[in-house]
C-alpha cells in the first residue's frame, strides 16, 4: 500500500505477557518513529530510526520496551512483561525528511 501500515490494529494482552507490534513504513522513507498516545492525550515520542540505526530511544518508558529495524524497513516494537499502564495506542510514522506520515496505530489493552 501507499501508506504506513501497522499490525495488529488491536491487541489485548494479559498483564505480564510479551507483545510485538509491527510497522511497515512508506517505501523509501529513511526515518521511522514510534509514538505512544494515551487516551485523551497527544502522541509522545518513543524512539527514532534512521535506516537501521536507532539514533534516539530517549522516550522509551522502561527497559521493558525494545524497538528494532534490522534491515532499515519494517520495524517492530516489543514490550516485555506488559503492565496496565502500557495500555495506549502505539503509532508508527515514517518520513522522507521532516514531515511525518502516521499509520493507523495499534491499540494495546492490558488486562
Amino acid at each position, binding site marked *: 500500500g501507499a501508506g*504506513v501500515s501497522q499490525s495488529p490494529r488491536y491487541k489485548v494482552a494479559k498483564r505480564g505477557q510479551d507483545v510485538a507490534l509491527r510497522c511497515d513504513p512508506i517505501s523509501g522513507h529513511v*526515518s521511522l*518513529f514510534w*509514538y505512544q498516545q494515551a487516551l*485523551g*492525550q*497527544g*502522541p*509522545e*515520542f518513543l524512539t*527514532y530510526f534512521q535506516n537501521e540505526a536507532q*539514533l*534516539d530511544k530517549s522516550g522509551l518508558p522502561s527497559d521493558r520496551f525494545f524497538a528494532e529495524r534490522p534491515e532499515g524497513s519494517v520495524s517492530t516494537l516489543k514490550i516485555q512483561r506488559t503492565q496496565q499502564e502500557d495500555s495506549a495506542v502505539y*503509532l508508527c*510514522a515514517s*518520513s522522507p525528511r*521532516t*514531515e*511525518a*506520515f*502516521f*499509520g*493507523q*496505530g495499534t491499540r494495546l489493552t492490558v488486562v
Partner: protein
Amino acid sequence: TQLLEQSPQFLSIQEGENLTVYCNSSSVFSSLQWYRQEPGEGPVLLVTVVTGGEVKKLKRLTFQFGDARKDSSLHITAAQPGDTGLYLCAGAGDGGSNYKLTFGKGTLLTVNP
C-alpha cells in the same frame, strides 16, 4: 523539556461558525506542524510552517506561525461537520533534535449540523 499548550481543549460549535485554536510554548521550534486525527486513525498532516510570521492557507483553514517561532494558531472559517476531529499541533525541536516532534494534547472540535 519542550511543552506545547493547546487551547481550547474542547470546542463544540454550529455549522457556519468561525473558530481559532491556539498552540503556545516557551520554547522555540524549528518548524511547527498541524495534524487532524479522527477516531481510530493516525494523525494526518495538514500543514508545516517554518518561518516566523508565516501564514499558510488551506481552503477554509488559515495557519499562522508566531514571529518568535514559539506559538501558532489555526483559524477555520465557516466550519462544516466534516471538520470534526482532534486537531494537534506538533513542534520540531531546534538544532540537532529537529526530527523529534513534541505534540500538544489536542483540541477536540465538534461541528454540529
